[in-house]
């Protein structure tokens, strides 16, 4: 089926061009209208094509659109062409929908900022890049979007570039992502080298013939692609940029953490599921890295005092979950969690933006408290998101997270160990999220009197997106109710045609056949109980008996120091990578460049200069002397002619 799919990314591009080229010439009302309308139109077209897609029979749910031929060069042929299948349809709806709400919210949040036009131009460019990434029908166009979101994250994280920490964070995000992108590109080279094409259809079709299952090449290719994913989706070892990314405006954090950017890695792996299924070793790596990241980031989040930093580490942790899902071949569960996470994490960040807005810029949890009565809408929506991320039954996070936990236990690629760590992480998630809620909204206000007088609920333009996202955070999970709870798991069925992994179907049949239904039920109840226990612990330490939290911190001061310092990963990278690099560069600058290269060039110039000043007296500047010498020259020449 052919449809003009390019319309979906086109609108944000137009919005970017208008807002970007006319910076300083448009009023704020006009800027925000153009920016929001362009993303809104993208979303509407996304919905239209999604409905078209649904009207097709299940096996042929595929809409293609070749925009134009991009690089025709011998065997290498790449089109600017787009592909809408169930996977990219989900991504388009999530990206465009959540981005649209964030755009609306930004009108209120950024209202007094000087860079209003610049901000919305970047935001539109971001959405354009992300939509290109998810809609591309070949790896190269995906890479274009991939680099595009990297660029936009740099621009938006460093949006307040007058602040050194923001500029540094932007640079960090960009450089760390470049490392990942390098791996991604190398992976693409291997694929092109072996398959001779970068088009998804060709690659997935030919891969089983070209690559041996578990062979070295496919393992290398998938590992390199995964390196790219660790950069974009903030996994060990490249997760360090994401917590710093909160230096940007809060809606940008919401955009990066929820809808765009970090989901790119998960999407890419889910998209390449055919390749990953052929490389069991990579799958194991993905699952282990995912679960390790989830646990590590979850523990760091326990001891952070900056509201956005807690949320940032929670994002890293939740992304770890998605990679666990991919690593145990439950790709659709990963995408499911990606979707629900997009809703509740966007809500959490926008809610924290609303809190920071009300607190006149204060981000430290230790100076908050008692905000419940001042910010009722923010409180209730924030609570919904917290319940969702904690995995309380009935909220969207429960369905997706439980699906991942179950798959990590039951899948052929899973193991008890992965399940156990993931379960502990789920409990930790509930703990630090409720710690956040109690410290922020309950108890006595710990802010100074000046801030207390300024407490106010945000304007409707900010609370409306919060409300919509809260609704989505609740109902978002109902598209994928597992069979165990009497649902039909529509979501997994919908993605089934894209997820062609053989084990996917097998695991699915297992759950459907009720073979392990009892185990699944026990595990589900167990995880819910564990989460509730940890929520109670948070309640005990941060609401009921605050002194106990202090004494516990005293007793575990070593661990607290380690967690508060974020395992000192930044410092370790600083010592192992940054410092040698800086020293090497200093050597090249001070010694090699200044002494060797400059010495060579300056020496040459000095020699020429000396010769020139030696020859200078020849030019007397006297007209008559020249004439005489000229005459002599002519005479000598003539004499020579005659004598010869």
């Amino acid at each position, binding site marked *: 089926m052919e449809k003009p799919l390019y319309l979906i990314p086109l609108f944000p591009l137009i919005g970017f061009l208008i807002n970007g080229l006319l910076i300083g010439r448009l009023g704020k009302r006009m800027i925000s209208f153009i920016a929001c309308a362009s993303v809104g139109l993208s979303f509407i077209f996304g919905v239209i094509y999604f409905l078209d897609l649904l009207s097709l029979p299940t096996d042929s749910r595929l809409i293609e659109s070749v925009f134009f031929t991009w690089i025709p060069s011998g065997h290498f042929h790449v089109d600017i062409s787009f592909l809408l299948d169930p996977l990219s349809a989900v991504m388009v709806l999530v990206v465009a929908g959540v981005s649209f709400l964030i755009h609306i919210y930004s009108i209120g949040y950024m209202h007094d900022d000087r860079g209003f036009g610049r901000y919305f131009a970047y935001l539109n460019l971001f959405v354009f890049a992300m939509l290109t990434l998810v809609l591309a029908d070949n790896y190269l166009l995906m890479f274009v979007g991939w680099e595009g979101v990297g660029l936009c994250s740099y621009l938006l994280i460093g949006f307040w570039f007058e602040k050194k920490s923001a500029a540094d964070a932007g640079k960090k995000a960009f450089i760390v992502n470049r490392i990942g992108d390098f791996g991604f590109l190398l992976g693409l080279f291997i694929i092109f080298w072996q398959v001779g094409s970068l088009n998804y259809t060709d690659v997935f079709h030919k891969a089983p013939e070209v690559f041996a299952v578990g062979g070295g090449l496919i393992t290398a290719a998938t590992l390199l692609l995964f390196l790219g994913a660790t950069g974009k989706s903030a996994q060990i070892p490249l997760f360090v940029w994401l917590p710093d990314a909160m230096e940007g405006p809060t809606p940008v954090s919401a955009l990066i953490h929820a809808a765009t950017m970090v989901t790119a890695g998960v999407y890419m792996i889910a998209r390449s599921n055919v390749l990953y299924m052929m490389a069991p070793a990579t799958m194991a790596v993905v699952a282990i890295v995912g679960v390790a990241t989830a646990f590590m980031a979850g523990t760091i989040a326990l001891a952070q005092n900056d509201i956005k930093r807690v949320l940032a580490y929670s994002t890293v942790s939740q992304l770890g979950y998605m990679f666990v899902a991919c690593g145990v071949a439950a790709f659709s569960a990963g995408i499911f969690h990606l979707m629900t996470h997009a809703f509740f994490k966007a809500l959490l960040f926008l809610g924290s933006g609303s809190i920071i807005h009300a607190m006149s810029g204060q981000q430290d949890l230790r100076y908050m408290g008692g905000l419940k009565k001042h910010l009722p809408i923010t409180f209730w929506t924030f609570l919904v998101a917290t319940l969702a991320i904690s995995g309380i039954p009935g909220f969207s996070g429960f369905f997706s997270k439980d699906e991942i936990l179950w798959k990590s236990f039951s899948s052929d690629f899973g193991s008890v160990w992965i399940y156990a760590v993931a379960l502990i992480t789920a409990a930790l998630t509930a703990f630090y999220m409720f710690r956040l809620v109690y410290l922020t909204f309950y108890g006595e206000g710990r802010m100074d009197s000046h801030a207390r007088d300024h407490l106010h609920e945000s304007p409707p333009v900010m609370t409306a997106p919060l409300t919509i996202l809260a609704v989505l955070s609740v109902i978002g999970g109902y598209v994928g109710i597992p069979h165990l709870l009497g649902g039909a798991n529509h979501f997994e069925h919908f993605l089934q045609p894209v997820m062609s992994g053989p084990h996917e179907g097998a695991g699915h049949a297992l759950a459907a056949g009720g073979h392990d239904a009892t185990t699944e039920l026990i595990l589900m109840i167990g995880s819910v109980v564990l989460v509730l226990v940890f929520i109670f612990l948070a309640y005990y330490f941060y609401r009921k008996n605050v002194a106990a939290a202090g004494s516990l911190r005293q007793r575990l001061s070593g661990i607290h120091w380690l967690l508060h310092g974020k395992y000192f990963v930044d410092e370790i990278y600083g010592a192992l990578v940054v410092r040698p690099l800086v020293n090497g560069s200093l050597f090249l600058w001070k010694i090699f460049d200044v002494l060797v290269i400059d010495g060579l060039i300056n020496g040459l110039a000095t020699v020429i200069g000396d010769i020139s000043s030696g020859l200078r007296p020849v*030019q*007397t*500047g*006297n*007209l*008559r002397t020249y*004439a*005489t010498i000229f*005459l002599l020259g002519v005479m000598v020449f003539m004499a020579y002619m005659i004598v010869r």
Partner: protein
Amino acid sequence: MVPISNFLVVSALLFAIGTAGVMVSRNLLIIFMSIELMLNAANLAIITFSRMNLNVDGHIIVFIVLTVAAAEAAVGLAIIIMIFRNRETVNADKFNLLKR
């Protein structure tokens, strides 16, 4: 009948006088006139050779040279006037700004 070599001798003398004028004189106008003299010495030589070979090509060349010389004289004088306005002198030895 004056022998033809006399014309050449006159031409050579005129050229030598012109050359000496360029080399010796400091006054730009004198230098300029000397150059004109050299030019016309050359003209005379060309006409003489043309006559010797019974060929009219030389006459035509001389006309062209005269035309060019007239134009060149106009431009040259204009330049000298501009120099005089700027520097209030026509002494060629004073024009060594680039050397200093």
